């Protein structure tokens, strides 16, 4: 049966962004930049009880070249900040950044000489998940919100 019976003419072209977004949002390859306490909660979320895999984001890639979602999990100090920035620069487009935990969002209660006051001062952030550390349910909700954001994103080729 020809496809034209179902979709109007030209629909494939206009829906390309939607199709790309759909494909991307269910195959998030995350790079866990795990530094601190939030890593324990990230571990819980990724393991079998909460199971990040249900949302297509279960497989961590430990190479920034292969990842498209940088999960910054835990406090970022000034000493590690250049490393984070470098890893962000190494990731290929399209890429998203998740600030996991309140330390990465604002610095949390670590307002001191050693801690970066929010990673948005060094890399752009797509999604903030506050909490110290956020509970796994909250992480999952954040992931769903990220998926919505990815779905709505227009492709770079078209925008340029």
């Amino acid at each position, binding site marked *: 049966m020809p496809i034209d019976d179902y979709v109007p003419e030209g629909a494939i072209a206009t829906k390309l962004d939607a199709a790309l977004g759909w494909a991307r949002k269910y195959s998030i390859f995350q790079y866990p930049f795990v530094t601190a306490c939030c890593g324990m909660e990230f571990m819980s979320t990724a393991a079998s009880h909460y199971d990040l895999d249900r949302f297509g984001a279960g497989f961590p890639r430990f190479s920034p070249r292969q990842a498209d979602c940088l999960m910054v999990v835990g406090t970022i100090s000034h*000493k590690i900040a250049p490393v984070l*920035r470098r890893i962000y620069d190494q990731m290929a487009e399209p890429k998203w950044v998740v600030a996991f935990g309140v330390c990465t969002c604002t610095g949390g209660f670590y307002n001191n000489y050693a801690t*970066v006051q929010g990673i948005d*001062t060094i890399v752009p952030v797509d999604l903030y998940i506050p909490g110290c550390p956020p509970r796994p349910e909250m992480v999952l909700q954040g992931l769903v919100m990220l998926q919505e954001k990815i779905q709505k994103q227009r492709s770079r080729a078209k925008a340029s």
Partner: protein
Amino acid sequence: MSEPAAANPCQGERREAVPSAAFDALRELKERGYNVLIDMTAVDYLAQGREPRFEVVYRLMKLDLSSGEDRGRVELHVKVPEGAPVLRSCLSLWPIADWLEREVWDMFGIGFVDRPKIKRLLMYEEFKGHPLRKDYPIAKRQPLIGPASGERPDNPSFNTVRPAVKYE
């Protein structure tokens, strides 16, 4: 006021030494069987206005290898003046002193001689000052990248920040 040290076996007997005699005191203690350097730290008494500003605390333990019993502890307090904050390193007695001395240097600026070049343990090399001194403000930032003040800009959008990345 209560006397907590007596009822506290972890703390052990308190001794004091002058900086020039500290190494000999430690060596003598080691010869007497205090075989583990449990901890080494410093206290900055600037806010209390005490005369020798720093006090370095060595904490030793006499551990029995076969029974695992702690046969006694001792803590050695060494008062270090602000003008010449240098001690003789006890790296030759316990190799762990390497990192502990580096931490004390990093946090308090108390130097150690008779050891390989001392460098910071926790902070980065570019950091100026010693953060656990009482006169270092808690929020005085020296970021490596990002906005120079380390604070969030008014409009926290990435395009306005443009961090300059410095690599080694």
